[in-house]
């Protein structure tokens, strides 16, 4: 075991794509279409094309297709939703590329979206938008997109390293990007992918919360990797909560989203006393208020002890009649019945659930980062959504920026030589990965993960304040210390306890940045709500926070290059 670090398999490739969700596969598709001779390697921690969250998209894909709609309107909706914290160039790129990408998905990738009665692509209404522009395939849009993208891989034939987790970006002696170290989960062997271009597209880190919606892979690997490589991150405090996550006790189903349509259809939210508490938070719109407001209201009720003994509020749509509920929300009814409740016949316990990380690596509109040769796409990147993401803009971001990353990767790969990574960096990275396995004694990673989730939920959740955040920061640091001493028994082949230990390290890195950034933003904006600074402060805080390893936080003005916010009093 001690010799494990000497034993690193090397793979040389033109483009190494880390992650195989919507952004990752779209990147591969574009890179290999732009240059069929390109050698592209996918490193995927889970099953290729079947891990991550693009797969889990229910709602759909926002794109301007109808002549009556306009790009300006979509941009304005996106910026309004993001409370004007967005990088407007990124948001603008998103809305201008989205129609082209939908067209590509339909005519090249093979997606077959739902049709309107006239035979054209159907677009449905989604919260926060002035036009019905969400393209969808039933309420399983992600499966259609990812299934078809996965099939494109059989046409293109990139090198697929399945069950291979990327560890660290490594540089050569001159400090230039040389590739990425990785670990083959099946064999437990270390791997070094030397690459001309590295694309990071691993998805966000919302799983660091006790109640969370995303897939298990999403442990902030990409963001943590970039952080360790000294790349700046922005908007890390901006983590979106969905208001109605299922609460199912110890079951892993906890956090799974109950769709927004329920509230639209007239569901009531009540606390344990049976009171429709939304009257106290948004009397005009009640349950149909925006995600952030409804999340905050539910969280406040639960934290104030007005929730159920399980720490939940109740959603009740049964007054529509069981048959009607079953007809309109079959998937949701089944989901609740699985956990022993019944949406069609009575109230169901729900709680806000951590959903999406708006923050991430600082990129430009071509996915370039500060480090030449390193591209970041999808949820790993920050800035597109500002302080809040609109439903339907998530999968749009993944595919739009995945495609751009692929184009750019193909364009720049030829000009970048394959470099020899610094041996010491590789050895350090691999040794750190093997550390939990080589330790003789130490606690298991699972309790530490659990405590991190609890700490983040309580201290850096839907409602934050200075005292809570400071305490949370302290806990995160203590947990990081414990995490550096966890030990894992068993073989190195297919050992998921070991993988948990490595996930934990990344989650802690991202968590620390989220808390630190949340402490700095002394106002409330979008998903970030400070009980001690409950108002949005456009004078002091039309600015975004940039964090970088080993440097002090930097606060920069948001440039309103496309649209200026309507000045509010």
């Amino acid at each position: 075991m001690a010799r494990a670090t000497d034993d690193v398999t090397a793979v040389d490739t033109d483009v190494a794509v880390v992650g195989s969700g919507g952004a990752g596969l779209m990147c591969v598709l574009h890179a290999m279409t732009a240059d069929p001779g390109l050698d592209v390697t996918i490193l995927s921690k889970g099953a290729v094309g079947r891990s991550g969250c693009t797969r889990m998209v229910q709602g759909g894909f926002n794109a301007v297709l109808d002549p009556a709609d306009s790009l300006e309107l979509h941009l304005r909706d996106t910026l309004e939703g993001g409370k004007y914290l967005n990088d407007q160039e990124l948001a603008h790129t998103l809305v201008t590329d989205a129609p082209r990408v939908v067209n590509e998905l339909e005519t090249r990738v093979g997606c077959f979206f739902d049709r309107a009665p006239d035979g054209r692509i159907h677009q449905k209404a989604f919260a926060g938008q002035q036009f019905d522009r969400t393209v969808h395939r039933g309420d399983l849009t992600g499966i259609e997109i990812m299934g078809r993208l996965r099939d494109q891989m059989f046409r293109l034939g990139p090198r697929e390293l399945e069950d291979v987790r990327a560890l660290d970006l490594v540089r050569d002696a001159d400090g230039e990007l040389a590739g990425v170290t990785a670990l083959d989960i099946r064999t437990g062997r270390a791997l070094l992918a030397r690459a001309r271009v590295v694309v990071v597209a691993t998805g966000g880190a919302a799983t660091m919360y006790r109640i969370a919606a995303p897939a298990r892979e999403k442990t902030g690997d990409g963001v943590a990797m970039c952080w360790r490589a000294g790349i700046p991150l922005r908007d890390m405090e901006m983590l979106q909560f969905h208001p109605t996550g299922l609460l199912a006790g110890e079951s892993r189903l906890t956090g799974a989203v109950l769709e927004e349509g329920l509230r639209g259809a007239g569901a009531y939210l009540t606390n344990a006393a049976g009171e429709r508490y939304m009257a106290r938070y948004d009397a005009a719109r009640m349950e149909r208020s925006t995600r952030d407001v409804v999340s905050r209201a539910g969280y406040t009720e639960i934290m104030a002890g007005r929730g159920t003994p399980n720490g939940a509020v109740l959603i009740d749509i049964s007054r529509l009649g069981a048959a009607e509920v079953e007809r309109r929300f079959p998937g949701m009814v089944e989901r609740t019945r699985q956990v022993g409740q019944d949406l069609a016949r009575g109230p169901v316990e729900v709680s806000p659930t951590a959903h999406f990380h708006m923050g991430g690596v600082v990129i430009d509109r071509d996915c370039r980062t500060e480090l030449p040769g390193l591209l970041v796409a999808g949820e790993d990147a920050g800035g597109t959504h500002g302080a809040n993401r609109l439903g339907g803009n998530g999968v749009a971001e993944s595919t739009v920026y995945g495609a751009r990353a692929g184009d750019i990767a193909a364009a720049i790969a030829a000009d970048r030589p394959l470099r020899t990574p610094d041996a010491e960096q590789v050895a350090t990275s691999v040794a750190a990965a093997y550390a939990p396995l080589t330790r003789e004694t130490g606690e298991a990673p699972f309790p530490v993960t659990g405590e991190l989730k609890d700490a983040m939920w309580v201290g850096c959740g839907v409602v934050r304040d200075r005292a809570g955040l400071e305490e949370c920061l302290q806990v995160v640091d203590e947990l990081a210390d414990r995490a550096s001493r966890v030990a894992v028994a068993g073989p190195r082949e297919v050992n998921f306890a070991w993988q948990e230990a490595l996930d934990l390290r990344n989650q802690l890195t991202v968590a620390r940045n989220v808390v630190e950034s949340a402490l700095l933003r002394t106002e409330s904006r979008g998903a970030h709500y400070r009980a001690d600074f409950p108002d949005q402060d456009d004078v002091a805080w039309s600015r975004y926070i940039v964090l970088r390893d080993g440097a002090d936080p930097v606060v920069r003005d948001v440039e309103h290059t496309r649209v200026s916010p309507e000045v509010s009093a």
Partner: protein
Amino acid sequence: MMVLDLLLAIQREHDACIGFRFSCRVAMCGTCTLRLDGRSVLACQTPVPQDRDTVRLDPVAGLPVLRDLVVDTAPFWREWAKVTPYLVPHDGLTEPAVVTPDSDERRLIDASLDCIGCAACYSSCAVAAGSRDFVGPAALNRAMVLVADSRDAAAEQRLAVADGAGGVDRCHYVYGCSAVCPKGLDPAAAIRYLRKSRLKS
């Protein structure tokens, strides 16, 4: 409590390195497939039977086991790849095709989309004999979706695979596939459709 929760509890409290896969835990990724008392199911969607003390869990059938419940899905995808599973757009497809929702084409395809590649049908297929060289229900379902698609120009090569040694003739209407599909698809009907298309061509 779902089977997945049971596995996670075993991982936390009894055997930290037990091998099993999962990702989304809401029946969309299709990676947690296993056999509960012989039946191929998604661990995340299947309650632990409460009527007895022990249950039997096996890995997906017909695929090489890596460790415990973790299998290598490569053979499944190898078969899948045989049917040209991607759209081969015909010349001139530059705009999304106009297809009304009540057209025969859309109805046929609609019912067969949403495959999550979980391999439950493959696992449950009784043609799963020792020398499995049947392309399998999932792949044929995908083939059917594309054969029926007016945007596609490669129906002939897919029908050739369906008519080949590992094609539709290997199906004996055991209905294992249609019975276990966690998304309610009916691969047996897709196979039947391909048999019919073959007779016409």
